[in-house]
C-alpha cells in the first residue's frame, strides 16, 4: 500500500546531517520498546484466533511468564539487599532509658525489609506449586489439552531458572539471616506489650527456617512436583530439549544459553531423585552427553559477581536429595576451584583456561571482527544501492536483502558469542582468585584488581570495543534494514508453507491423513497468498490454488514479518508432527527413531523449526542489540561488597575504571581510540540499576563513581596529550646532525598517536548527559600551557643568566608543541599566553617578568661575579666570586621540559654546552625573548646603572686623589725597572686604602662589563637588522651604493612593492569579471603602508654608540674634577689629579698583584676593567695623556731600553731584569688590551668632528649628525630623572 508518509520521510534524507564526531562510543540511544516479540507484547492473546485449541496452554504460559517476571524482581531485591544492621545506631550509656524507643524504631525499619523477604517466601511457595501443577497438567500421557508448546517449555525453564537463582542468592547472601536475627531480637523486645503475637511468632519461625535452610526453594519445589508422581516425563522432555538446544547451539543467544546451563544440573537432580526408575533418563539422553556439557562449562555466570558451577551444585544437592547421591559419575566432576592450579594456569596443557581467557582468542576475534565489519558494510552499500536504483530486478533485490539478513544473523551470533565470552571470563575469574596475593588485599581485589594481567585488560578493552562498535553499527542501520529483514523472513516463511509444505503434502504425507492435516493447518495459519498486490485477478486466482498445482509457487515479497503468535503456533505444529504429541516417545526432539517421517523431510522441518526460533530475535532488532551489547554487569559487586563488609570499593578496584586506566597507561597507542568505550560500561550499569534492578542508590553510587572517574580520566588524558605533543615537538626540534650521528636515534623519535579523533569528541554520552570533551581538553590545555610557561620562568629565576639559552630552547619547544596542537584544537594563541605569564599584557608595560629577571640577575650576580675574556668574547663566572644564594630549582614532570626522559637528556646535553658562560648565543636568546618591546627598557636600566656607578665612584676617586702627591713627574730611566717600580710605589701611598682601591676597581669593572655587554648586544642587533634589510630591500627598491650608503632605485616613483600591487589592482579592476575591486584597492593601500613602515625602520642606530654617548654625558658632571684643564693650554706632565693617573695607579697595582700571586686578581676582575677604565679615559679626552704617562707604559719603555742595553753589554742582564718578567709580561698584555679598546672606541665614538650620534631631549636618538667635539655637546643627553 502506498503511504504518502514514506515520501515525507524520504524527503528528510535531503537534509545534510554531517557530523564531525567520530563514532568511538557504543550505541547510546535506545527507543524503549518495553517488550518485544520474544516475549509477546499481547500475551499471546491472538493465539486463540488460529483456533488450535491452545487456550489452556496459552493461559498457563502467560501465568508462568508473569511469575518469571515477578521472580526476576524478587531476585533483584535479594541481590541488591544490603545489611541494615550495620547502619543501626547504638545508644550511649547516658540514654539507656530510651532503649525501648530505639527497639521500636529499629523494629519498624527492619519490618519493612523483612516484609519483602516474607513476600519472597510466599511468592516462591506459590510459584513452585504453580510450576509443579503446570507440569503435572501437561505431562499426562493421556492428554486432553493441547500443549505444551515450545514457548511453554521455555517458560517452564525460565521460571525454574529464576527459582534456582533465587535459591542460590539466598544461600550466598549472609547479611539476610544476620538482619533477620536482629529483627527477631527486637521483635521479642517490642512485642512484650502486644497481644496476640502467637501467629506473628509462628510466621517468624517459618521465615527463619526458610532463610536458614540452604536450597529451601528447590526442596520445596521437589516436594510440590512429586506430590503426584508423573512429572518425570516432562522433566525428561525438558532435559532432552535443553541438551539438544545446547548441542546444536544455533538459535541460542547467550542469555538463553546461560539459562539452559544453569537449569540443566537441577533438572538432572530432580529427575534422578524421583521415586521411579531413575535410570530411564539415560535411555533418552546418554550420560556422556550430560557430562560433556558440564565439563565444557565448569562455571556459569549467574549474577554479575556470582557464578554457579554445575559440579558444585550437583555435589551439594546430593546431600539434600539422597536418591541422587548414587549418581557417582556426575558427582566426581571437579569444581572450578578444585582444578589443579598448575593445570589451570599453564594454558597449553589445559583446555579450561584456554577456553575462558579472552586473550587466547583475541587474535581470532580480531579477524572475525575485521572480516565481519567489511562484509557488513558492503552488504549495507548494496542495500543502499538497491534503494536508490528503485530496483525492479526481483532476483537481485532478493539476493541483496537475503545477504543483509545473513549478515544480521551473523552479527547477532558474533555479538552473542563475544559478550558470552566476557561473562564467562568474569565468572572464571571470580571462581579463581589470584593466588599470590598479599593477605592485606580484600576478596574483591583478589578476584578483580589483581586477577587481570595487563595483557588481559587490554584484551578485554579490545573485545569490549568490538562489541560496542559492532553494536552501534547495527543499531544505526536499524530502520534501514528493517524492511529487508521483514521481507526476507516473510519470503522464508512463505517459501516454506507454500512450496516445501506443498511438496511434502503431495508426496510423503499423502497417505497420512492426521499428519497432513497438521501440515495444512500450518499453511492456513501463516500463508500469505496475496502477497503481491500487483498480480492480476487471474494470476491471483491461480496462485490461490497454486499450492496443489505448480511445483514452485512464485510469490512476491511483502515487508511484513510473521507475528509472535504465528511463530509460536508454527513451532508447536512442527513439534506435533515430529513428536506425535507423545511425551514418552523415546529419542530426541528430531531424533528419527521410530518416526514415520522420512529423513529428508525431517531435516527440512528441523531447520525451519530452529530458524523460526531465531526470527523472533531479528524482529526484536534493537532490543536484541541492546541485550547483546549490555556490559553493565562488569561494574556490579553487591555480593563482594557484602562479604567484604564495606560500603563501596575504591575506584581502583572497579573494572571499568581499570580498563580506562589500562588504555591510558598502555604503551600501545592504537588502543587509545577505545578509551571511551569502557565508560560505556558505566552507562550500561546505570541503565541496569534503574531499569532492571530498580535501585536508586545503585545509580547514585555509579553516578558518583563516574563523576570521579571522568575527572581523573580527563586529567590523565590531558597529561597524555600534552606529553605527546611536547615530545613530538622536542623530537622535531632536535639537531638533525646530532640525530644523524647518534647511534640510537630511534629512541628520540616519537610514536604517533591518533589523538585527533578524541579531540573531536564534542558529545561524550555519559549517564544520559552529553559532555563536551573537546572543550574540557581545550580548557585544560590552556591551563597547562600557562603552567608550563610559569614553570620555565620559575626555573629561570633559580638559575643564572647563562640559562637563558636553555629557557629559549624550552620555550621554543613549547611553542612548537602549541603549534602542533593548534592544528587539532583551538587553544589560546601562544604569544598571548606568553604575554600573560610575562605580566606585560598591558599596552603601557614595557618591562616583563623575563626582562626584570634578567636585569635583577645582571645586577646581583652577573656584573659583580662574572669576568670578561676579551679573546673569546665571553663572560665566565669568576672562581673567586662569592656564590649567590638562590632558591632551589623547582622540580616538575618530564612533560614540562621536553616530554620524555630521553628527549630531556638529549636537550639537556645541548643546554649544558651553554650553561658555563655568557656570550653571543645568550645575547641572541635575550634579543629574541625580549623583542623590541622590553629590550629598550633593559638598555635604559643598564645605562642608568652606569651613571649610578659613576656617581658612586666619584667620592672614592676623590679619596684616592687626595693621597696622591701634588705632582708626579716622568719616571727616571736611571733607576731601571726596579727603581721605577719602587718610585711608583712611593707615589702611590694607598696602603691604607686597599678596600677603597678594590671597590673602585670593581666599579670600573662593572662599567666595563656593561659597555662590553652593550657591544655584544649591538653586534646581535646589527645582524638581525641586516637580515631584515636583506629581506626587505628588494621590495623597497633599495641598493647599496659604492660608499656603503643606501641608494634608492626610483628617486621619485613608488617602491617595487607598491607599484606591483598598484598595477595588479589596476589590472584587476579593469577586468570586467572582477568580483570585488575594492579589496584590491585596499591591498595596494596596505602595500603603501608597509612600504612606509619598513622604510622607517631602516636606519636604526647602534646601541653601543648610544651607550657610549650616554656614558660620556654621565661623565660630564665630573669632568672638572677628573680632568683639570691646563690653564696654560699646554699639557701639564706633572699633574696628578686627572683620572688617568688614578687608573694608572690602579692598573699597576693589580698587575703587580696578579704577577705576585699567580693570576689572582685577574680572575676576579677580568678584561672588563680595561674596558671600563679606558672608556672613561677616552671619553674624558685623556687617552693621549694616559698613553704617555701611564706608569706601566713607562716601566715597559724603561724595560725596553734596559733590555736593549743589556743586549749591548751582555753583562748582569739577568740580574737586572730578574723577578720582573712576569710583571712586564702582564703589563704588555694590558697595553695590548688597552690599545684594542681605544681603537674600538675611536671607531665607534669618534671625538673628531665627524658624523656621530646624538640624543634628543626626549630620548630619541639622532643618527649620524655632525657636531663639534666639545664637551658641551654632551649636555644635550638626557639624564635620569630629568
Amino acid at each position, binding site marked *: *500500500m502506498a503511504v504518502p508518509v514514506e515520501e515525507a520521510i524520504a524527503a528528510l*534524507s535531503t537534509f545534510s*546531517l554531517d557530523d564531525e564526531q567520530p563514532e568511538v562510543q557504543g550505541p547510546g540511544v535506545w527507543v524503549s520498546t518495553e517488550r518485544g516479540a520474544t516475549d509477546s507484547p499481547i500475551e499471546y492473546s491472538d493465539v486463540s484466533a488460529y483456533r488450535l485449541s491452545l487456550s489452556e496452554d496459552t493461559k498457563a504460559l502467560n501465568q508462568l511468564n508473569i511469575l518469571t517476571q515477578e521472580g526476576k524482581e524478587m531476585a533483584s531485591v535479594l541481590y541488591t539487599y544490603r545489611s541494615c544492621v550495620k547502619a543501626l545506631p547504638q545508644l550511649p550509656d547516658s540514654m539507656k532509658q530510651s532503649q525501648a524507643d530505639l527497639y521500636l524504631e529499629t523494629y519498624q525499619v527492619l519490618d519493612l525489609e523483612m516484609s519483602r523477604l516474607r513476600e519472597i517466601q510466599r511468592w516462591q511457595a506459590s510459584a513452585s506449586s504453580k510450576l509443579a501443577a503446570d507440569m503435572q497438567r501437561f505431562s499426562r500421557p493421556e492428554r486432553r489439552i493441547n500443549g505444551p508448546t515450545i514457548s511453554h517449555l521455555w517458560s517452564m525453564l525460565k521460571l525454574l531458572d529464576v527459582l534456582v537463582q533465587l535459591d542460590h542468592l539466598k544461600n550466598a547472601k549472609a547479611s539476610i539471616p544476620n538482619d533477620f536475627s536482629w529483627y527477631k531480637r527486637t521483635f521479642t523486645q517490642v512485642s512484650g506489650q502486644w497481644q496476640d503475637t502467637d501467629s506473628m511468632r509462628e510466621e517468624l519461625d517459618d521465615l527463619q527456617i526458610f532463610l536458614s535452610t540452604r536450597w529451601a526453594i528447590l526442596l520445596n519445589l521437589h516436594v510440590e512436583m512429586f506430590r503426584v508422581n508423573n512429572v518425570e516425563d516432562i522433566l525428561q522432555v525438558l532435559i532432552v530439549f535443553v541438551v539438544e538446544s545446547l548441542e546444536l547451539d544455533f538459535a541460542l543467544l547467550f542469555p538463553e544459553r546461560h539459562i539452559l546451563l544453569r537449569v540443566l544440573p537441577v533438572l538432572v537432580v530432580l529427575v534422578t531423585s524421583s521415586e521411579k526408575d531413575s535410570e530411564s533418563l539415560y535411555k533418552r539422553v546418554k550420560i556422556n552427553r550430560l557430562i560433556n556439557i558440564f565439563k565444557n562449562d565448569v562455571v556459569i555466570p549467574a549474577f554479575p559477581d556470582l557464578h554457579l558451577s554445575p559440579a558444585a551444585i550437583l555435589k551439594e544437592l546430593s546431600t539434600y536429595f539422597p536418591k541422587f547421591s548414587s549418581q557417582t559419575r556426575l558427582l566426581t566432576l571437579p569444581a572450578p576451584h578444585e582444578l589443579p592450579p598448575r593445570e589451570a594456569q599453564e594454558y597449553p596443557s589445559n583446555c579450561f583456561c584456554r577456553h575462558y581467557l579472552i586473550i587466547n582468542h583475541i587474535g581470532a576475534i580480531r579477524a572475525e571482527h575485521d572480516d565481519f565489519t567489511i562484509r557488513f558494510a558492503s552488504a549495507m552499500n548494496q542495500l543502499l544501492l538497491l534503494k536508490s536504483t528503485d530496483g525492479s530486478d526481483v532476483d537481485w533485490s532478493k539476493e541483496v536483502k537475503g545477504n543483509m539478513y545473513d549478515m544480521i544473523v551473523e552479527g547477532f551470533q558474533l555479538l552473542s558469542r563475544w559478550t558470552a565470552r566476557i561473562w564467562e571470563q568474569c565468572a572464571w575469574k571470580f571462581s579463581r582468585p589470584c593466588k599470590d596475593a598479599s593477605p592485606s588485599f580484600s576478596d574483591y581485589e583478589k578476584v578483580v584488581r589483581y586477577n587481570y594481567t595487563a595483557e588481559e585488560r587490554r584484551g578485554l578493552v579490545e573485545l569490549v570495543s568490538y562489541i560496542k562498535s559492532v553494536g552501534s553499527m547495527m543499531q544505526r542501520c536499524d530502520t534501514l534494514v528493517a524492511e529487508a529483514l521483514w521481507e526476507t523472513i516473510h519470503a522464508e516463511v512463505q517459501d516454506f508453507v507454500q512450496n516445501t509444505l506443498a511438496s511434502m503434502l503431495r508426496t510423503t504425507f499423502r497417505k497420512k491423513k492426521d499428519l497432513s492435516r*497438521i501440515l495444512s*493447518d500450518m499453511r*492456513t495459519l501463516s500463508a500469505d497468498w496475496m502477497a503481491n498486490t500487483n498480480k492480476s485477478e487471474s494470476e491471483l486466482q491461480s496462485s490461490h490454488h497454486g499450492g496443489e498445482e505448480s511445483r514452485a509457487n512464485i510469490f512476491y515479497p511483502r*515487508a511484513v514479518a510473521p507475528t509472535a503468535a504465528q511463530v509460536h503456533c508454527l513451532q508447536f505444529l512442527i513439534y*506435533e508432527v515430529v513428536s506425535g504429541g507423545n511425551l514418552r516417545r523415546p529419542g530426541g526432539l528430531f531424533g528419527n527413531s521410530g518416526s514415520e517421517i522420512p529423513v529428508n523431510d525431517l531435516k527440512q522441518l528441523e531447520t525451519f523449526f530452529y530458524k523460526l526460533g531465531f526470527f523472533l530475535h531479528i524482529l526484536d532488532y534493537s532490543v536484541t542489540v541492546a541485550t547483546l551489547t549490555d556490559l553493565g554487569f562488569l561494574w556490579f559487586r553487591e555480593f563482594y561488597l557484602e562479604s567484604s563488609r564495606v560500603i563501596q570499593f575504591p575506584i581502583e578496584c572497579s573494572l571499568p575504571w581499570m580498563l580506562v586506566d589500562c588504555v591510558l597507561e598502555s604503551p600501545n597507542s592504537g588502543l587509545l581510540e577505545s578509551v571511551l568505550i569502557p565508560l560505556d560500561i558505566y552507562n550500561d550499569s546505570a541503565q541496569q540499576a534503574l531499569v532492571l534492578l530498580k535501585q536508586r542508590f545503585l545509580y547514585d553510587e555509579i553516578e558518583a563513581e563516574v563523576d570521579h572517574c571522568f575527572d581523573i580520566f580527563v586529567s590523565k588524558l590531558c597529561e597524555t596529550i600534552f606529553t605527546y605533543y611536547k615530545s613530538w615537538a622536542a623530537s622535531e626540534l632536535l639537531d638533525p646532525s646530532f640525530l644523524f650521528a647518534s647511534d640510537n636515534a630511534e629512541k628520540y623519535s616519537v610514536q604517533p598517536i591518533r589523538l585527533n579523533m578524541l579531540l573531536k569528541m*564534542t*558529545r561524550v554520552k555519559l549517564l544520559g548527559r552529553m559532555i563536551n570533551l573537546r572543550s574540557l581538553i581545550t580548557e585544560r590545555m590552556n591551563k597547562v600551557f600557562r603552567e608550563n610557561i610559569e614553570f620555565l620562568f620559575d626555573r629561570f629565576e633559580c638559575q643564572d643568566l647563562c640559562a637563558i639559552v636553555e629557557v629559549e630552547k624550552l620555550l621554543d619547544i613549547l611553542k612548537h608543541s602549541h603549534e602542533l596542537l593548534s592544528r587539532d584544537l583551538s587553544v589560546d594563541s601562544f604569544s598571548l599566553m606568553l604575554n600573560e605569564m610575562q605580566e606585560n599584557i598591558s599596552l603601557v608595560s614595557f618591562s616583563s617578568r623575563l626582562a626584570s629577571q634578567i636585569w635583577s640577575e645582571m645586577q646581583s650576580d652577573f656584573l659583580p661575579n662574572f669576568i670578561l675574556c676579551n679573546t673569546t668574547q665571553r663572560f665566565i663566572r669568576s672562581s673567586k666570586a662569592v656564590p649567590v644564594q638562590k632558591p632551589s630549582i623547582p622540580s616538575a614532570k618530564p612533560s614540562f621540559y621536553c616530554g620524555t626522559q630521553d628527549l630531556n637528556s638529549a636537550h639537556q646535553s645541548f643546554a649544558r654546552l651553554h650553561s658555563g658562560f655568557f656570550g653571543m648565543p645568550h645575547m641572541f636568546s635575550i634579543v629574541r625573548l625580549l623583542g623590541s618591546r622590553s629590550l629598550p627598557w633593559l638598555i635604559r636600566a643598564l645605562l642608568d646603572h652606569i651613571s649610578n656607578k659613576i656617581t658612586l665612584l666619584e667620592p672614592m676617586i676623590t679619596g684616592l686623589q687626595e693621597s696622591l702627591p701634588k705632582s708626579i713627574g716622568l719616571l727616571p730611566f736611571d733607576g731601571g725597572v726596579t727603581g721605577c717600580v719602587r718610585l711608583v710605589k712611593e707615589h702611590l701611598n694607598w696602603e691604607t686604602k686597599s678596600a677603597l682601591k678594590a671597590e673602585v676597581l670593581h666599579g670600573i669593572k662593572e662599567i666595563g662589563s656593561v659597555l662590553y655587554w652593550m657591544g655584544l648586544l649591538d653586534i646581535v642587533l646589527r645582524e638581525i637588522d641586516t637580515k631584515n634589510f636583506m629581506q626587505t630591500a628588494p621590495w623597497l627598491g633599495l641598493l647599496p651604493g659604492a660608499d656603503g650608503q643606501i641608494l634608492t632605485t626610483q628617486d621619485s616613483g613608488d617602491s617595487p612593492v607598491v607599484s606591483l600591487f598598484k598595477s595588479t589592482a589596476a589590472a584587476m579592476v579593469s577586468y570586467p569579471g572582477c568580483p570585488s575591486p575594492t579589496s584590491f584597492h585596499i591591498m595596494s593601500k596596505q602595500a603603501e603602508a608597509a612600504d612606509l613602515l619598513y622604510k622607517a625602520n631602516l636606519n636604526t642606530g647602534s646601541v653601543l654608540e648610544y651607550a657610549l654617548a650616554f656614558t660620556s654625558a654621565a661623565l660630564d658632571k665630573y669632568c672638572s674634577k677628573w680632568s683639570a684643564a691646563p690653564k696654560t693650554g699646554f699639557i701639564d706632565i706633572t699633574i696628578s689629579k686627572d683620572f688617568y693617573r688614578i687608573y694608572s695607579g690602579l692598573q699597576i697595582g693589580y698587575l703587580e698583584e696578579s704577577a705576585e700571586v699567580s693570576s689572582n686578581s685577574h680572575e676576579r676582575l677580568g678584561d672588563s676593567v680595561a674596558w671600563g677604565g679606558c672608556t672613561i679615559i677616552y671619553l674624558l679626552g685623556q687617552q693621549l695623556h694616559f698613553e704617555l704617562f701611564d706608569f706601566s707604559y713607562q716601566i715597559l719603555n724603561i724595560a725596553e731600553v734596559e733590555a736593549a742595553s743589556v743586549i749591548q753589554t751582555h753583562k748582569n742582564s739577568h740580574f737586572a731584569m730578574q723577578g720582573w718578567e712576569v710583571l712586564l709580561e702582564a703589563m704588555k698584555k694590558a697595553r695590548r688590551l688597552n690599545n684594542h679598546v681605544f681603537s674600538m672606541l675611536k671607531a665607534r665614538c669618534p671625538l673628531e668632528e665627524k658624523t656621530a650620534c646624538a640624543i634628543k631631549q626626549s630620548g630619541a636618538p639622532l643618527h649620524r649628525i655632525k657636531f663639534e667635539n666639545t664637551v658641551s655637546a654632551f649636555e644635550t643627553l638626557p639624564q635620569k630623572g630629568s
Partner: protein
Amino acid sequence: MARAGGITNAVNVGIAVQADWENREFISHISLNVRRLFDFLVQFEATTKSKLASLNEKLDVLERRLELLEVQVANASANPSLFAT
C-alpha cells in the same frame, strides 16, 4: 484425541489471516516510518549539538580575546599621559 491441530474453521481462519497480513503491512509501514522520523530527530539533534559546540568554541575564543582587548584599552586609557607626546 492423540493429535493436536485441527483448525476448526479452516476457511474462515485462512481469510482472516490473509486480511491480517494486509493490515499488518500497513501497520508496520507506519511504525517503521515513525521510527525513521525518530531516527532523523536523534541525528538532527546530534548534528545540531556538534555545530553548536563548534560555534560555542569560536565564541569562547572571541570572548577571551575581547576580554583581553578590553583590559588593554582600559589600562591604556587610565594613563592618558603616556600617550601625550
